[in-house]
């Protein structure tokens, strides 16, 4: 209970700032309208107007909340939960690309890490490229990946997943290289005294030792993967997915729609990171490492 109070305070502060900013940002349009209609705006009128505009500069929380409800819960209740207008549908589209890309990125990252740890040439040659890959802005790479894959006949889920993979393999490589190298000299010497093979040392010592590092990487990786999937929906003018909602929203100045897609994406990220955190806690506890 004691942690609730500070959290609540912060939430209330954010809401207060949000509502206040909405007044400030949306006021010019309200005055504009009033001037054209030749009416005087009282303070109450101003507040009421700035908090309920159709296309506000900054929509207020209850507008976003009601939009989110209209496109999720309300649609479920009316039996259209998975229609093309529902945020659940769009979240699912983005989520599936995120998970596929995340899985691919985790596999790729782990394989690269194994190569880097076991092969000196790879250690010296691969890491600089891995780092370079992340210095190129994803927004510049994404269209190329999509265009190239489209040219060879691959479209839909996979191109988006590739962009997710591109972003999520990086934390996995970095974390797993560190994790696979985390056994100390004594533990490795011990394996040597038993004349253990490289494979036995890997499966019985290096891989289990790397678990805390892996989970830390996965949390960063899945969030990056979601960003990748959203970015992947932007350049194609995709019709489905949270990225598509963002794009459509900005074409038509539907700020409420933009914000609700944005918050849904944030909630999705928090959910996925939370699930990994849960798996992490259970696994590490069972492994005696937490």
């Amino acid at each position, binding site marked *: 209970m004691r942690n609730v109070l500070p959290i609540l305070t912060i939430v209330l502060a954010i809401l207060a700032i949000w509502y206040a900013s909405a007044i400030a940002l949306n006021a010019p349009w309200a005055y504009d309208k009033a001037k054209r209609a030749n009416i005087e705006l009282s303070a109450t009128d101003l507040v009421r107007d700035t908090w309920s505009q159709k296309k506000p500069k900054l929509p207020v929380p209850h507008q976003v909340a009601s939009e989110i409800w209209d496109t999720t819960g309300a649609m479920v209740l009316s039996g259209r939960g998975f229609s093309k207008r529902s945020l659940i549908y769009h979240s699912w589209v983005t989520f599936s690309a995120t998970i596929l890309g995340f899985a691919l990125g985790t596999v790729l990252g782990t394989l690269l890490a194994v190569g880097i740890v076991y092969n000196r040439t790879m250690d010296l040659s691969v890491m600089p490229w891995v780092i370079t890959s992340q210095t190129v802005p994803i927004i510049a790479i994404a269209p190329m990946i999509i265009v190239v894959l489209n040219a060879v006949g691959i479209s839909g889920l996979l191109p988006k997943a590739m962009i997710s993979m591109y972003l999520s393999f990086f934390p996995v490589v970095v974390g797993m290289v560190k994790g696979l190298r985390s056994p100390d000299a004594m533990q490795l*010497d011990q394996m040597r*005294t*038993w*004349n253990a093979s490289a494979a036995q040392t890997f499966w019985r010592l290096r891989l289990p030792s790397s678990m805390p590092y892996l989970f830390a990487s996965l949390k960063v990786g899945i969030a990056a993967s979601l960003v990748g999937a959203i970015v992947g929906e932007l350049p194609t003018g995709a019709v489905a997915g949270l990225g598509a909602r963002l794009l459509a929203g900005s074409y038509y100045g539907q700020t409420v729609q933009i914000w609700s897609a944005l918050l849904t994406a944030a909630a999705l990220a928090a959910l996925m990171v939370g699930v990994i955190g849960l798996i992490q806690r259970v696994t590490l506890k069972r492994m005696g490492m937490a």
Partner: protein
Amino acid sequence: MSDIVISAKDLGLTFQTGDGPIHALKDVNLDVRQGDFVSFIGPSGCGKTTFLRVMADLEQPTAGTITVNGTSPEEARRARAYGYVFQAAGLYPWRTIGGNIRLPLEIMGYSRDEQARRTADVLELVELGGFEKKYPWQLSGGMQQRASIARALAFDADLLLMDEPFGALDEIVRDHLNEQLLKLWDRTGKTICFVTHSIPEAVYLSTRIVVMSPRPGRIADVIESPLPRERPLDIRDSREFIEIAHRVRDGLRAGHGDD
């Protein structure tokens, strides 16, 4: 000749470091016989660990020769001829005590039945019967160290190399483990090389005590113990015991004479 387990001749090991060469071992000559309990004692940095690691093929000598069971240390390691007990127990937290003891057995390809039988046997030997399913963090430091000894005993190695296995434990626990170790040595007939900093521990355990001195690391004295194989703890109050302890101390002092 076949009863010589370890034979070092003019053995030397020089580490090349940034601050110049370090002579960790120089002109070391020593034969360890089958069934010996040999203790290595000496001030910090005199090369005790290095010597043990050379026997175990964890370090390569730069001069002289050494054989283990009549072969090179590498062949002996590949033949799994020795068990090595490190200063820290080094148990895997994600494995139970039983799982930790099975680890080398799995690696060496023992059958499941054989693994189970041997694990139960060695746990009994170190008086940890009933702890097979516990995790390392559920055991005290002394019990963990006993488990790590059990792990080194589980496979068929006649040679046991131990580097300050009881260094981090308190005196009472240490006495108890010393007693157990002696019994175990008596029962199994293994050859043991044992590194320690404690004079009473060395004298109590050993059939031979190798006193080493530093810079360069070398053997200053080898003392044959006249004590019987059967050694109750109170043998430490006997005159013979105290005489040997004196000789060890003199040896250590002589090695220190130049600084």
